[in-house]
């Protein structure tokens, strides 16, 4: 209610001076959204956040029209506001404002301005050879495993009886042949053009309690520049992979919500329609589609997820190690409710004196190349390392 006063204040005089008011609404609502568990946050504050974001964007655009200077910063601020609105907000029941569309318009405007500014100085650097690994899986330190079974475009029924129901992992080939992404995303300049202006939350570090953990909001263009392109020049010395102490886990949870243009480049695998629930009348939960984009050497430490997972490799290559839920004890999961889905053992630097049971754990291994998908059943432990710049899409479903 009090926040309504702030909004009225801003709408009355929408100019640069009223921005602190609407930012107060956003700031206060942001704190409400950050209190307690995200899943328990009620709809109302999220809708309020969206409404406030709309007002802020309107105020910024009004300034954009009237001002001569700082036009680019105003648009960038509006873009960031729209992205945060998509990530944190919820659609309003009244009115016909669609934040994703607003974001798309802003993104297109920004891209147009920026390419104008570059004066056709288009990125001529080859955006494609970053997706080729320099070293193979044999150069990774630590344990090796038995290869996961590979199936070439299995029928739905075969996949269901032999893998989905008994919950056994499998590598699936020839299932992404019609994905435009496999070709289009080979050029990083395409991603830069379509999504460069967008703000994404980048999580760096293996998990919260890791002292290196941090979360940063940055634009995809900045992310590509600082985390992907810089790695390109890194030495190709033997042992690079072993030396580099990277624990970057980079997942864009809202990527496809934010950039629907890229959704047209992928297809949800038909296997995702399978469900453990035999009740046909119950409406299925929509599949969670996430983007995993990162430089060479990014690593997901050994952990498990509650849903079925199809990890589709679009460009670049990954090495995945798998352990069945039956091996859980041998992997020494962390104590505590926040981290017990993460293991303490490090397959790349096994410490058998501290973790003796790990020596007898059965390891499965999979080298995932572009166009291949890996089925990871629920609760199966997995450890993922990218061998070069990599873009994968994961499909989580129940």
């Amino acid at each position, binding site marked *: 209610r009090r926040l309504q006063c702030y909004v009225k204040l801003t709408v009355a005089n929408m100019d640069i001076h009223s921005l*602190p008011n609407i930012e107060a609404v956003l700031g206060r609502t942001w704190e409400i959204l950050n*209190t307690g*568990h995200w899943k328990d946050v009620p709809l109302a504050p999220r809708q309020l956040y969206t409404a406030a974001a709309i007002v802020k964007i309107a105020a910024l655009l009004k300034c954009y029209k009237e001002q001569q200077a700082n036009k680019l910063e105003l648009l960038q601020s509006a873009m960031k506001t729209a992205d945060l609105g998509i990530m944190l907000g919820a659609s309003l029941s009244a009115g016909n404002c669609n934040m994703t569309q607003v974001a798309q318009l802003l993104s297109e405007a920004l891209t147009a301005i920026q390419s104008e500014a570059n004066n056709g100085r288009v990125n001529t650097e080859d955006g494609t050879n970053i997706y080729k690994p320099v070293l193979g899986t044999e150069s990774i330190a630590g344990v090796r495993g038995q290869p996961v079974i590979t199936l070439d475009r299995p029928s739905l029924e075969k996949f269901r009886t032999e893998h989905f129901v008994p919950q056994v992992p499998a590598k699936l080939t020839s299932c992404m042949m019609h994905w435009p992404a496999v070709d289009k995303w080979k050029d990083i300049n395409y991603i830069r053009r379509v999504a460069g202006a967008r703000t994404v939350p980048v999580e760096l570090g293996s998990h919260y*309690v890791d002292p290196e953990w941090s979360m940063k909001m940055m634009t995809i263009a900045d992310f590509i520049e600082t985390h992907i392109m810089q790695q390109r020049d890194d030495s190709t010395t033997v042992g690079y992979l072993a030396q580099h102490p990277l624990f970057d886990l980079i997942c864009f949870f809202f990527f496809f919500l934010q950039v629907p243009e890229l959704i047209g480049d992928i297809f949800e695998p038909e296997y995702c329609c399978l469900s453990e629930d035999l009740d046909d009348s119950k409406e299925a939960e929509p599949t969670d589609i996430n983007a995993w984009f990162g430089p060479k050497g990014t690593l997901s430490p050994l952990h498990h997820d509650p849903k079925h997972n199809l990890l589709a490799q679009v460009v670049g290559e990954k090495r995945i190690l798998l352990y069945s839920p039956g091996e859980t004890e041998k992997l020494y999961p962390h104590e505590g409710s*926040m981290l017990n889905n993460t293991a303490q053992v490090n397959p790349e630097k096994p410490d058998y004196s501290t973790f003796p049971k790990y020596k007898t754990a059965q390891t499965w291994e999979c080298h995932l190349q572009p166009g291949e998908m890996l089925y990871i059943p629920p609760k199966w432990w997995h450890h993922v390392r990218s061998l070069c710049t990599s873009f994968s899409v994961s499909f989580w479903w129940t």
Partner: protein
Amino acid sequence: MKLLYCGFNAFGQLPHVQATAVCELTEFPQMSAHDVHISWSYIVILSDAASPQDTAQVACCERHILSVERSGEVSKYCSDSAMRTALESITSDNITSLSCGETFDAFATSRGCVYAAMSPVLHLSSDHVTEVACGNEHCLVLTSAGAVYSWGTGSRGQLGHGDLEKEQERARQVDMLAGLKVTHIAAGGWHSVALADTGDIYVWGWNCEGQLGLPSVGCKGRKRRQEEVSVQTEPALLQNVTDVQQVACGSRHTVLLLR
């Protein structure tokens, strides 16, 4: 004493100033006060004009203002009702200090008991409570012996036990401060600060905006990523800061008063 204000002013917090934000400390006109409490919705000024004897302690948060009299009676005031209502007594003991945060209130009694969200979370046998501080989801307690206890949600390390677990049953002592005598505590939205008798400051909890005074991802300027701290799960000594007299926290910022 003079009262100076800076911050958001769109609701006329500073009555004679028009601007929506006051960036420099500005004096409250014709006001002489001995204490002030501030929250998102309320500013409570204990002016010199009123008798300071009656009210023992005041605390405010977004939801309401709480005050406890010397008599031990606790009242609640909130702008909806425009009335002061007496709070049902949760205990027959005298309430000596209180604090309120976004989601709950905390009270300490003369007999060493601390109540949070209306149920006891701490019993001290040989010590008593000098201060209670509430954040958005946690509560800190300081005893006269200089020990610090924490209670509530710990998902941002604000409890200081080296993990992200919550303590909902009982307030737990912050062991890493056990060797020190803490003289003052403060709680922000998701962070905690302790001032030791040496004048040193210890900080823990969320550092998303640099509120712990440690290198933060939110801050501008180039920093090696390895130095950045997002969540500090156990008390860290603030380097290069000594002789601190007092500390106070806002939702996402901290202020230190040096000698």
